[in-house]
């Protein structure tokens, strides 16, 4: 487990000295301190850290959900540092798939329609959308539930629908935010198995988690602490961080 990237592969995600500062009238909070991260195509990376360490900010920026104040970000070889809102929307739609802790299915759309949402925004023809939806829902084993509403599914099933939604889009990169955070152990395992299978088929996955079990499934772990990437080896294994005051201020709003 080293902080170095695997060699000989194309870089999927490359961040150089990314800085994110939240400003209010009174306080200026550094959420990310000039962090640099590289993720190779096909990697499965876990991002770890305590609450307030900057994990979510990192994920928002990686997913082009949020902008940053300094640094450079290349995604799949393309400079995505200074894109317009609609260009970012297009990249999210075509290259990135999101999996959320709380699944974020749209409550009044059934399984089919939920998986359909990103495909619609890609303006795909109806026949192709249907094929993709059925294929991806089948992959997560929920084909019999195609016309069920999210409320009629268990948590694990909902998360599998969310995964199907990702699969249907055939993204280059999957960003998962605590994908098992709301699930029990058994269901967690199922979801992680699914993610592993997806990774094995070649899709890059970056997963934010604070569960060591999940993190261990990934091929590499990155640790965030107070908005910085820390070299795990230089820290005491269990000890609390010393910059107590700073971490308090870094609570993401």
């Amino acid at each position: 487990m080293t902080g170095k990237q695997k060699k000989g592969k194309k870089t999927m995600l490359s961040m150089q000295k990314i800085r994110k500062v939240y400003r209010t009238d009174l306080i200026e909070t550094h959420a990310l301190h000039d962090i640099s991260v590289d993720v190779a195509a096909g990697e499965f990376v876990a991002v770890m850290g305590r609450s307030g360490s900057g994990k979510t900010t990192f994920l928002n920026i990686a997913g082009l959900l949020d902008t940053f104040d300094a640094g450079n970000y290349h995604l799949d070889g393309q400079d995505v540092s200074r894109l317009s809102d609609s260009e970012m929307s297009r990249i999210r739609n075509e290259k990135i798939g999101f999996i959320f802790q709380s699944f974020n299915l749209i409550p009044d759309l059934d399984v089919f329609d939920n998986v359909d949402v990103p495909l619609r925004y890609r303006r795909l023809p109806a026949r192709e959308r249907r094929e993709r939806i059925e294929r991806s829902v089948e992959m997560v084993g929920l084909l019999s539930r195609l016309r069920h509403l999210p409320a009629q599914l268990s948590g694990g099933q909902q998360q599998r629908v969310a995964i199907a939604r990702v699969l249907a889009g055939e993204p280059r990169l999957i960003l998962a935010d605590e994908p098992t955070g709301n699930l029990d152990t058994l269901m967690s395992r199922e979801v992680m198995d699914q993610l592993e299978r997806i990774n094995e088929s070649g899709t890059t996955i970056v997963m934010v988690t604070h569960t060591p079990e999940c993190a261990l499934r990934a091929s590499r772990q990155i640790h965030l602490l107070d908005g910085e990437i820390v070299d795990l080896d230089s820290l005491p294994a269990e000890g609390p961080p010393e910059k107590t005051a700073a971490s308090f201020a870094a609570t993401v709003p």
Partner: protein
Amino acid sequence: MLFHNLRIAWKSLKRNRALSILIVTGIALGIAVSTTFATVRHSFAKDPIPTRSGVLYYVRLDSWDPLKPYPGADSTLPPTQVTYRDMTEIMKSDIPSRQGGMFKTALYVFPDAKIGQPFRETIRLCFSDFFPMFDVPFRYGSGWDKKADEGPEPVVVLSDEMNDKLFGGKNSVGKTVRISDRDFRVVGVLADWAPSVKIYDLTQNFIEKPEKIYMPFNFVKPMQLRTFGNSDGWGSSGGLSGFDGFLQSESCWIQMWVELPDKAAVSKYKDFLAAYVLDQKKHGRFQRPVNNRVSTVEEWMRDQRVVPPETTAMLIVSLLFLGVCAVNLVGLLLGKFLARSSEVGVRRALGASRADIFVQHVVECELIGVVGGAIGLALSVGALALLNQWLKTTQLRGDYFHLDIPMVLLSVGLSLAAGLAAGLYPAWRTCRLSPAVHLSLQ
């Protein structure tokens, strides 16, 4: 995509029924009220005779008292009708392609004893040109000819209602009707005819239905007929009394119409009237400044204030009402849209652009506008039916207000405009929501 957005919007409406009912009710009330009053006003204001209004002109001459103008809201206007003397003189002109004075009276009709008692009926006296001038539709026969005007020949035209009453609806052309003290031969029976306002006579109640019997004007003398309308007069009787005195007096009681085919004819006719008035001045009449009017249908309707001012006031109030509904809607939609920030966040994360989100929400607002508008339109049909009911009790006519195509289009337009006006800001606010904030904290 539009269809998809409509489906999303429909689901969204169904999600929170209580709120949706509030929202739709608001817009429906606004549309109902504004459509109703726009229609009420339109019923008065629209062109009652679009096929003929381009060539028909109403004639007025200022034969009034030199000492003061004809009384009325607008003192620059001449009397609303012409005197008998002036009508007979100006009808000698051959400039109009058709022309004629007219008035309303009431006489006893003596039906066949089998049908019933004698009854009094309002009757219009007019010239043969009346029927083609006002595009009067016939079921049987036709109007009378110029020769019948001259005689006058005892001929009548009946409305279909009168024909139903007197002859059981059969073709009665050639049959005889006894009116007052003489027999008249039926030459024509009208088909159903009810112009929106009784355009040929705006001097009295102009929303009543046309008269049921028409006879040649020149019976006025032999039958000594008096008008059942205004006969405003002034000045000395000149010693004359009785019926001849009335005909020779300055009483204004005849509605005078001419048909002028083109602009040249209009200006020629105006010159003719001016010359007539100047000639009359030499004989001591028309001592006021020359003030002749050859008015189009539209001008004549405006001068007679056919559109009641309160209907205009009501229209203004009802449009403001719709404005309040729209403002109200902005607030409700803002609340509704912002309450689902997280859903918008998900969509944004899945690749929806701001434009996608904006369009989705505008479509939802328009759907609300259309649904509310449809309900509003239905409500206004009901409201207009109630107004017609009221009109029937006071005016004996229960078909006056109805939605026509322009009003339905207006209603649809208002619905869409209200939906758009109310939806633009909330949709804009919603599409500007940052996707990140509403995901991370769910």
